[in-house]
Structure formats: structure tokens, C-alpha cells
């Protein structure tokens, strides 16, 4: 097998994901509507309730809408990662996964390609969201739109890998919906997406630690820093470590010799 074969395989997976995305326009719009509802309704209600003190990377006071924007970007990626993995469960149920798995390229490469394809889709959704969010006066520095890109890639990989790992452990599509409720919402709410960590610490110390060590917080924070063209080593390392853990678990999960996929006859 040469490198061209790998590229061809990667292109095939990305093209399939892109086609699926184009044909499911409602998926694109629903991915946008979700964070916009949070921004337009939830943030409007909390505007005067929450005072947001100056915390890095911000250099002055910000509105609540500005604060939650990185959290909503991460939310897009979280949902996208889960949905992309959901399609794996669907593929398995429909039998189309077998077509992909009989490919001579290594299983880990297939998983990584599938993940990257999902991340690319989520990046498109994020930039569309940022375009609309500018009407809410959420306008980061111009350089922020560029520096956000690598952060999106890493956070997208981390959240996609988590979804992939979960999908490897789920047999039926119905079960996956339940896991989404048990994973997405606790992850999203117990993080720095909606409230700053210092605010949570003021209310409950144990909840603060839950939020602090929540992988989703790391994703939100690297997006927050990169949106303002700043680099935070602590959160970046966190995202990389969590990405490696989730990716390893996902690869193992889809490994026919040892993963749960074999037990379920995928």
C-alpha cells in the first residue's frame, strides 16, 4: 500500500461525509439554530443577572453574549462530533459499515479519517455561526478568526473521538440517543461554557472541580483564548491529552480483535 492509497481512502471518507452534509441541509441549519437560540434567548435573559469580571483572555468587561460565544462554538463541535458518531451506529445497523471496514487500510486510519471529515464539517458550521453572531456584536479581532482554526481542529478531534468511542460501545441507534442525553448535557452544563469557573467556585466547590476537570471546559477555553489570538498552554495540553485518550479508546473500541465492536458483531 502506498501513500496514494491512503489519500484516496481519506478523500473517499471526507467526500462521503461532505455529501451527507450537503444532502442533509436541515442538519446544517439545526446545528446553527441551536447555538443561536442560546445566544438570542438564553443570553438575553441572563444579560443583567450575571456580571462577567475581567478574566483572561479578555482585557475589559464583556457582555454575557460575548462570554458564552466560545462555549456555543464548542457546543456546535460537541453536537457535530456526537452526530457524526451517531452515523457510525446507523452505518453499522444498515450494514454499510462493513463496506468501509473491509478496506485494506488500517482500522485506525479509517477512524481518524472519519473523525477529520466530521471536524471539517463542524468548522464550516462554526464559521457560519460566527458570521451570524457578529450581528450580536460578537466580533473578535480579525486575527482571531485565523487563530481559531487550529484550536477548532484540536477541540473537534477531541470531541469527535469521544463520540466515536461512545459509538463503539453502543449496539443500537436507540441507545445512542440516551447516551447523548447523559453525555452532552452534563458535559455542556458542568463546564465553563455558560458560567466562568470563578462564579461556579463561589457557589459550590465540588461542582467547581467537576467543571475544572471536565474535558469540555478545556475545549471551550482553548477556543476562547484562540478567538482572541492568545495561546494557553494548560488548556492546550489538556485538549491534546484528552484527544489521545479518547482516540485510543475509540481505536481500541473498533478493533475487531479486542474491542466491543467484535462482541456486538459489528
Amino acid at each position, binding site marked *: 500500500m502506498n501513500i496514494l492509497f491512503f489519500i484516496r481512502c481519506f478523500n473517499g471518507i471526507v467526500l462521503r461525509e461532505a455529501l451527507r452534509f450537503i444532502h442533509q441541509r436541515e442538519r446544517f441549519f439545526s446545528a446553527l439554530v441551536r447555538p443561536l437560540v442560546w445566544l438570542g434567548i438564553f443570553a438575553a435573559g441572563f444579560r443583567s443577572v450575571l456580571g462577567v*469580571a475581567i478574566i483572561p483572555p479578555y482585557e*475589559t*468587561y464583556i457582555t454575557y453574549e460575548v462570554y458564552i460565544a466560545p462555549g456555543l462554538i464548542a457546543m456546535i463541535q460537541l453536537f457535530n462530533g456526537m452526530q457524526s458518531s451517531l452515523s457510525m451506529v446507523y452505518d453499522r445497523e444498515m450494514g454499510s459499515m462493513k463496506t468501509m471496514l473491509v478496506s485494506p487500510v488500517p482500522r485506525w486510519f479509517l477512524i481518524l479519517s472519519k473523525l477529520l471529515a466530521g471536524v471539517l464539517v463542524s468548522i464550516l458550521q462554526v464559521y457560519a455561526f460566527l458570521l451570524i453572531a457578529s450581528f450580536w456584536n460578537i466580533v473578535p479581532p480579525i486575527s482571531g478568526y485565523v487563530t481559531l482554526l487550529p484550536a477548532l481542529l484540536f477541540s473537534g478531534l477531541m470531541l469527535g473521538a469521544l463520540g466515536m468511542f461512545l459509538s463503539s460501545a453502543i449496539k443500537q441507534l436507540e441507545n445512542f440517543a440516551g447516551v447523548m442525553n447523559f453525555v452532552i448535557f452534563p458535559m455542556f452544563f458542568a463546564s465553563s461554557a455558560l458560567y466562568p469557573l470563578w462564579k461556579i467556585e463561589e457557589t459550590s466547590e465540588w461542582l467547581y472541580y467537576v467543571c475544572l476537570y471536565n474535558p469540555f471546559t478545556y475545549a471551550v477555553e482553548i477556543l476562547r483564548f484562540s478567538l482572541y489570538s492568545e495561546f494557553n498552554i494548560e488548556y492546550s495540553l489538556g485538549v491534546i491529552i484528552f484527544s489521545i485518550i479518547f482516540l485510543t479508546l475509540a481505536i481500541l473500541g473498533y478493533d475487531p480483535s479486542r474491542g466491543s465492536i467484535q462482541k456486538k458483531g459489528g
Partner: protein
Amino acid sequence: MNFLLKINIILIALCFSVFSKVSHANKAFITNEKDNTVSVLDVKKMKVIDTVKVGQRPRGIIISNDGKLVLICASDDDRVEVRDVETMKLKYILPSGPDPELMVLSPDDSVLYIANEDDAMVTVVDMADKMIIDDIPVGVEPEGMGLTNNGKVLVNTSETTNMAHFISTDNLEIFENVLVDQRPRVAMFTPDDSEVWVSAEIGGTVKVINPEDRKVSHTISFEIPGVNEESIQPVGVRHTKDGKFTFVALGPANRVAVIDQKTKEIIKYLLVGQRVWQMHLTPDEKTLISTNGVSNDVSFIDVEKLKVTKSVKVGRFPWGVAITPN
């Protein structure tokens, strides 16, 4: 060798002269009411470069028109401190009435007008003799002090009487009282002296008065989504010289309103720190600095972009702000 030494000395001297000029440019002085200090900020770097101990409860602060002196109302000491802009060393003390709050200097720096909150008087001080010339009786709790470019008309506001008093500086007498909304805090003439804007803290409005006939031509009200009406308490007013914008500090609303100086339409609200009261523009009018009393910081506003760029911690309860003219 000698030649090289001379070159070195010249270069070092040049560096010193350049840097000394840079370091003097655009300093902002902030009175910290609770700390009895003045924070000195480098406007360009947006950094505190010094903190100087001053008299008790410093509030109003101005810089002389020649840019050499800093004048500070030490309210609880019932005096005005005069310090050197460069060194911040106390040069001398000027007398005032009880609880001096805001003041204004005549265009030639010869006369100082001080509003004394506790005795319903505006004290007039001769800067050369450092003596009180006169006390002008005004309403209860005088505060705002606005002066025309030629120094002929002084407008003082009295917080409890709810009036703007028009005073002739020729005979030091009130020639008209204009009723404004509750608790007027600041009076500020537009750069062309065609209007005087008076903010009313409790009334939540800004009255625009024509100094010719002393009639109110406009009443500006504010409405901020998500902020209750009671929190909108206008205090500081600053006009840009180009006649484009007027900035109004809205107190506990934590916002600075940007108003079109001509149409009186509100363009934008800028989020700053808590309880914003006083403001000052840099000489090039590219930056506006606001003092945020409760959050103990000052906010730097980019006037061109109408955007808050940074908030910097100073002392406790920052009150007044003055920026060097050069």
C-alpha cells in the same frame, strides 16, 4: 578613542532626551477616593506607573491649561492640593470651602472656581495670590462646573436644588437659574460654547441648554436592554472637539453612552466597569478614559472604533480623571 567616546556621550544624551519626552507624554491622573491616593497612568501603555499619597478623600482633579500643575480636591481636608505634573510633589495648598468636589480653571490659569459640596458656595481663588477672592452663594450641594472658552460664563449645578446656575465671571453673580432634573452632577459646554449639557443622576437624563436664552433645547433619556431604569444614572459628560460625539457616563448602569453631538441620538452603549462616573479625553481625542468607582478600575475607550479596549485596576473607588494636555 576620544572621538568614539564623544559619539557615545552624544548618543546617550540623545536617548535620554527622547525617552524623557516620551515618558512625559500623556499621563492620566486618577483620584482614588477611598485610598487617599492618585494613580498615575501611562496612557499609551495603559499601565499604572506610579501611585502617590495625597490628601484625604481626593475627588475632582484637573490639570492647569499650561500643563504644569495637577490640582486635586482633597474633600475631607477642605483644601485643594497643587502638585507638579512631572514629579507629583506638593507645591502648595489652595484654600477652599468645606468639602470641595469639582473645580475649573479660567483659560489663562489665573482664577480657580471650586464647588464646595457642604456649604452651598462656589469659591473663587486667585491663583497668583493663592487667596480666596469671593464666595458665590449657589444652590444646595454644588458640584458640576462648566466654563465657556472665553471664561466669561460659569455654570454650576447644585445637586439638591436641582438647578444649573449661570454665573457671570465679570461680577461673580448668578444671572440665571435653570431648573433641571433631579441631582444634576456635571455641566459641560460644547466646544463651540453653543450648548451646555447638564447630567441629572437621579433624573436619569441629560438636559441640553442654550446659553443664549438659557432654555432647554433637548432632554436626552437613556434605555439599555437588560438594565433597569433606576441603574441608569448619568454623571460625567465629555464632548469631542470635532463636534461628532458626546460621551455620558451612566453610573451603576456600567455603560458609557455615545451620543451624536448634533442630532442628540444615542449611537451606542459601551460596557465599562462598575459605577462609571467621570471621564476624560486624551488631547488627540483618540482615547477616552472612564473611572469605574465600584470595580476599582479605569476603562480605556477607543474613540475611533467606539470600543472598550482595556480596563486597568487602580486604587479603591477611583473618582476623577485628568489627562496631561501634551
